[in-house]
C-alpha cells in the first residue's frame, strides 16, 4: 500500500519537502541554538558590564572611603538583576561587601559560580586615576542566561515548525493541482485513447503551453511517428507476404509449366545443363542424370545440317542469348541411342538474383518438318497445276481465237460487201455467223477475265471518273440493240457525281448491267438509269421492266454459270457476267446488289466510293482521231503470219485499200529478209510463229538503225493482258488481239500510214 503511495508524485514531493525542510530546520535550530547561546553569553556580559558602569562611581566612592554600607547597598542593588548571581566588592585587601542571589542556596551558588565566568573590574580612586582603591567581582547567573537562550531557541523552533506547516499547506495542494491531477487526467485520457483511429491527446485545460502541454504534444508526435512506422511496417509486411505468396505462386506456376510442358525444357548455367523436365527425358530417351552436368551440344551430331560445327554454333547461340537476344533456331539433336531428330530451340535469358540462366525450350519438329515438306510439295504441285491451267487457258484462248479471227474477219468482210455486196437472202446468215463468232469471242474473254479474277491477278487502277458522261456513252453503245426491241432507256439524273474507280472496269460493269436490263426486258419495255451520291458513296441503279427473278433463285445470282433458266431461252448469255461484275465492284471497294419482283421487274445497283479531292488522277479522255480517207492511205505493209487462213483474211481486208501493198511472210525469218531487202512503211507481226517468234523479230528490227524507225503492230491471238503488256513494253507501236475488228485495224493502219506520209 505504501509502496504504491510512494509511487505518487504528491507523496514523494511531500516526503522530500518535509524531509528537506525538517533537516534544514534541525541544522538551523542547532546553529540558532549555538548562536543564541553565545549571543546570550555576550549579551549577558555586556549587560553586566553596563550594570557595573552605572554603579562604578558609587563603588569608587565606597571603596575610596571603605564604606561597607554603601558597598552592600550597591551589591544588593546589582543582585536585583536576574542576570547576576553574586557580587563581591573589595577595597584593597578588605571585603566591603559580598552578596549572592537571594533565591539560591549556597550549593547552587557554588555550582553555578563554577560554571559562570565572573567579571572582575578594578576600582580606581575617584580623585586619582592612577590609584586602585578596590575591585568589584560580579558572577553572571547562567541559569537565567540559559533559560533566556533556550526561550529564544524554542521560539525559533516554533517559527520553523509553523513555516514547515505553511509550506506543506501551500506546496502540497499546488503539486496536487498543478502536476498530479493533470498528469492523472492525462493518463486516464491516454488509457481511453485509440491512437490507431487517429485520436489525438488533448492537453488538460490551462496546461497547453507548459511542460504538460509539451509532454502532450511530444506524446502526440511520438504516437504519430510510431503509428506511421507501424503502418509502414504493416504495409511492408503485407507487401512482403504478397510478394512471397506471388513468388511462391509464380514458382509453382513456372514449375507446373516446366514439368507439364510437352516440350523439353532445359536450364543452362555456365554452359552446363543444371535442370530439365520430364518431357526432356521422354524426348531424349535417357535419365535425368544423363542430362545434368552435360554441355548443351552433348546430344547433337558433330555437324549441323548447314555444315557448321555443333559445339561452335551452340556457343555462338548461347552467347547471343546471354546478351539478351532471345534465340529461335532449328537444331539437329541426337538421342542416347544415336537416332537424330530435328528440333526447334528457343533460347532465352533468365536473369535472377543469384545469377543468370539460359532456358532452352526444345520442341521436336520432326512431324512439323514432314508436314512442311509435304506442304511445300503440295504447293509446288498446285503451282504447277495453276501454271498448267494458265498455260492451258492461254493456249486455249490462242487456239480458239485463231480460227475465230478467220470466221469473224471473213464474216465482217462479207457483211461489208467485200469483195461483192451480198444478196439480201445472204445478208442474214452472214450476220448470224458474225454475231455467233462475236458471242463466242465474248465467252472466251469473260472466261479469261473470271479466271484472272479468281487467280487474283486483276489489275485495277484508281482514278476519278465522272459518272454522267460514262453512262451516256454506254447508253449510246446499247441504244441500237434496245431500239430494235423498242425498249426505252431513260437517264434523268445528270448527276455531277464523280467516283474513284478504274474507268475501264466501271464501263465493263455498267455495260454488263445495262445489257442485261435490255436483254431480259420485254419488248416495248423501259430501262431507268439513275445516279445518286450519298455519304461519299455513289449509287448507280438500273431498273428494267422484265419478268423479274423468282425469290428462290436470288441466292443463285452472282454465282458463275447460273443463268436462272435463261439457258433454255433464246436469250444469249454466258452466265458469268454478274459474277465478274461483283468481283470487279468488290475489288474497287464497292458493293453490288439487286431487288426484284416477279412479273414487275428488277433493279440492279452498284455502289462505288465517291471521288474526293485526293483523287486527282483524272482518267484521260478517250479521244478519237478522224482517220484519213482510205483513198489517201498508201504504202507498203508487211504482214508476218504463219496461218494461211488469217493471212487470207488480211489480204481480203487490204484488197479494199487499193493504194496499200500488202506483203505476206509466213515466218519471222522470211519477214526480216523482206524488211532488209525492201523496208516497208508498216509491219504487222504475229507473235506465235514457228521458229523465231514475233518478239524476237521485233528486237531484231528495233536493234537495226536502218529499220528501227519502222512502226510494228502486233496482231496476235495471245490476248491475255500480260501478253499485251509485255508486247507493248517490248516496243510494238500497238497490239491488236485476234480476232480483231476490221474497222479498228483499218483505222490504225490508215492513221500510221497517214502520219508516216505526213512525216
Amino acid at each position, binding site marked *: 500500500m505504501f509502496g504504491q503511495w510512494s509511487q505518487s508524485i504528491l507523496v514523494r514531493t511531500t516526503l522530500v519537502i518535509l524531509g528537506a525542510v525538517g533537516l534544514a530546520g534541525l541544522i538551523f535550530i542547532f546553529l540558532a541554538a549555538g548562536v543564541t547561546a553565545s549571543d546570550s553569553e555576550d549579551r549577558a556580559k555586556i549587560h553586566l558590564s553596563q550594570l557595573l558602569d552605572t554603579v562604578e562611581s*558609587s563603588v569608587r566612592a565606597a571603596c575610596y572611603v571603605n*564604606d561597607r554600607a554603601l558597598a552592600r547597598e550597591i551589591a544588593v542593588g546589582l543582585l536585583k538583576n536576574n542576570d547576576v548571581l553574586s557580587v563581591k566588592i573589595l577595597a584593597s585587601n578588605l571585603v566591603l561587601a559580598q552578596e549572592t542571589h537571594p533565591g539560591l542556596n549556597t550549593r547552587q551558588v557554588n555550582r553555578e559560580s563554577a560554571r559562570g565566568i565572573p567579571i572582575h573590574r578594578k576600582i580606581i580612586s*575617584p*580623585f586619582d586615576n592612577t590609584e586602585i582603591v578596590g575591585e568589584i567581582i560580579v558572577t553572571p547567573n547562567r541559569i537565567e542566561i540559559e533559560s533566556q537562550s533556550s526561550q529564544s531557541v524554542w521560539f525559533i523552533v516554533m517559527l520553523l515548525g509553523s513555516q514547515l506547516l505553511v509550506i506543506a499547506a501551500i506546496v502540497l495542494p499546488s503539486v496536487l493541482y498543478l502536476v498530479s491531477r493533470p498528469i492523472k487526467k492525462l493518463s486516464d485520457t491516454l488509457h481511453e485513447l485509440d491512437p490507431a483511429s487517429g485520436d489525438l491527446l488533448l492537453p488538460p485545460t490551462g496546461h497547453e503551453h507548459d511542460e504538460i502541454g509539451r509532454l502532450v504534444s511530444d506524446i502526440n508526435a511520438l504516437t504519430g511517428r510510431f503509428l506511421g512506422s507501424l503502418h509502414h511496417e504493416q504495409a511492408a509486411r503485407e507487401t512482403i507476404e504478397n510478394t512471397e505468396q506471388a513468388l511462391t505462386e509464380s514458382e509453382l506456376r513456372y514449375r507446373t509449366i516446366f514439368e507439364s510442358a510437352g516440350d523439353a525444357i532445359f536450364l543452362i548455367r555456365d554452359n552446363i545443363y543444371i535442370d530439365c523436365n520430364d518431357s526432356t527425358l521422354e524426348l531424349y530417351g535417357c535419365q535425368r542424370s544423363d542430362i545434368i552436368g552435360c554441355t548443351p551440344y552433348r546430344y547433337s551430331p558433330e555437324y549441323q545440317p548447314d555444315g557448321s560445327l555443333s559445339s561452335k554454333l551452340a556457343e555462338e547461340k548461347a552467347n547471343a542469348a546471354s546478351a539478351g537476344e532471345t534465340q529461335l533456331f532449328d537444331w539437329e539433336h541426337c538421342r542416347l541411342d544415336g537416332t537424330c531428330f530435328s528440333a526447334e530451340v528457343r533460347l532465352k535469358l533468365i536473369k535472377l538474383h543469384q545469377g543468370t540462366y539460359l532456358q532452352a525450350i526444345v520442341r521436336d519438329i520432326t512431324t512439323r518438318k514432314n508436314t512442311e515438306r509435304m506442304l511445300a510439295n503440295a504447293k509446288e504441285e498446285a503451282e504447277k497445276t495453276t501454271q498448267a491451267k494458265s498455260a492451258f487457258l492461254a493456249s486455249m484462248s490462242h487456239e480458239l481465237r485463231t480460227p475465230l479471227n478467220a470466221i469473224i474477219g471473213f464474216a465482217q468482210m462479207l457483211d461489208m460487201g467485200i469483195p461483192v455486196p451480198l444478196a439480201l437472202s445472204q445478208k442474214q446468215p452472214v450476220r448470224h455467223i458474225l454475231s455467233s463468232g462475236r458471242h463466242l469471242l465474248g465467252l472466251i474473254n469473260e472466261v479469261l477475265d473470271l479466271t484472272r479474277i479468281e487467280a487474283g491477278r486483276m489489275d485495277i487502277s484508281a482514278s476519278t471518273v465522272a459518272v454522267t458522261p460514262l453512262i451516256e456513252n454506254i447508253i449510246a453503245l446499247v441504244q441500237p440493240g434496245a431500239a430494235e426491241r423498242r425498249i426505252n432507256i431513260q437517264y434523268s439524273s445528270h448527276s455531277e457525281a464523280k467516283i474513284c474507280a478504274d474507268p475501264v472496269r466501271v464501263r465493263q460493269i455498267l455495260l454488263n448491267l445495262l445489257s442485261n436490263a435490255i436483254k431480259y426486258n420485254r419488248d416495248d419495255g423501259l430501262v431507268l438509269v439513275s445516279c445518286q451520291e450519298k455519304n461519299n458513296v455513289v449509287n448507280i441503279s438500273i431498273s428494267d421492266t422484265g419478268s423479274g427473278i423468282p425469290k428462290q433463285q436470288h441466292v443463285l445470282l452472282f454465282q458463275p454459270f447460273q443463268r436462272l433458266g435463261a439457258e433454255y431461252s433464246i436469250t444469249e448469255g454466258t452466265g458469268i457476267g454478274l459474277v465478274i461484275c461483283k468481283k470487279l465492284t468488290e475489288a474497287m471497294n464497292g458493293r453490288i446488289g439487286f431487288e426484284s419482283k416477279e412479273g414487275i421487274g428488277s433493279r440492279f445497283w452498284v455502289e462505288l466510293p465517291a471521288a474526293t479531292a485526293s483523287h486527282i488522277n483524272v482518267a484521260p479522255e478517250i479521244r478519237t482521231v478522224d482517220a484519213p480517207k482510205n483513198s489517201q492511205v498508201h504504202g507498203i505493209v508487211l504482214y508476218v503470219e504463219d496461218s494461211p487462213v488469217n493471212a487470207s483474211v488480211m489480204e481480203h481486208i487490204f484488197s479494199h485499200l487499193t493504194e496499200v501493198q500488202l506483203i505476206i511472210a509466213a515466218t519471222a525469218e522470211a519477214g526480216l529478209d523482206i524488211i532488209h531487202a525492201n523496208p516497208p512503211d508498216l509491219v504487222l507481226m504475229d507473235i506465235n510463229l514457228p521458229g523465231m517468234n514475233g518478239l524476237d523479230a521485233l528486237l531484231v528490227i528495233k536493234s537495226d538503225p536502218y529499220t528501227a524507225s519502222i512502226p510494228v503492230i502486233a496482231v496476235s491471238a495471245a490476248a491475255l493482258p500480260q501478253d499485251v503488256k509485255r508486247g507493248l513494253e517490248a516496243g510494238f507501236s500497238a497490239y491488236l488481239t485476234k480476232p480483231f475488228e476490221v474497222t479498228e485495224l483499218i483505222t490504225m493502219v490508215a492513221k500510221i500510214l497517214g502520219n508516216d506520209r505526213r512525216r
Partner: protein
Amino acid sequence: MKSNRLTRIIRCTLLLALMISAPVNADVVVIVSANCDATALSRREIINIFMGRYRFLPSGHAAKPYDLPTTDPRKAQFYLALTGKNISDIDAYWARLVLTGNASPPDEASSQEAMLDKIARNPWSIGYLDRSIIDNRVRVIFDPEH
C-alpha cells in the same frame, strides 16, 4: 575605553584652561594654624582629609577640614585645583556617601574671615583661603595651583 580616553582629553583640556586662567583668579591656598605641628602635606594627604577618606595629620592627630560656603566661588576653584573635578562632581560624591553616614563632607565656614578665624583657633584644623587675606595666625601649607 574610548570614552576613557575622551574624558582624559577633556580633563587635560580643563586643567590646561585652569592653569591659564589661574593668574586671573584669586590665588586659593591651603592653610593650617600657625601652631600646627605639620610642616608639609602632600596633595594626596590633603585630598584624603578633605574627601573624608583619612582625616589624620602626619602627627597622628585627627584633622578637622573646613569648607567655604557653596556660594563662594573659591570653593569650586579650590576643589577644581585640588582634585581636577567640578564642584557638582564633588557634591555628587558627597551625596552618595552622606546617605550611608559613614563619611561626611567638611564642616562649612560661613565666610573667609570665619574660615580664617576657625583655622587660627584650632591647630588641627585645615582650610583654604584666598592668599591675599592670610595673616600670621595661619600658615600656607599647600598651594593646589602648583
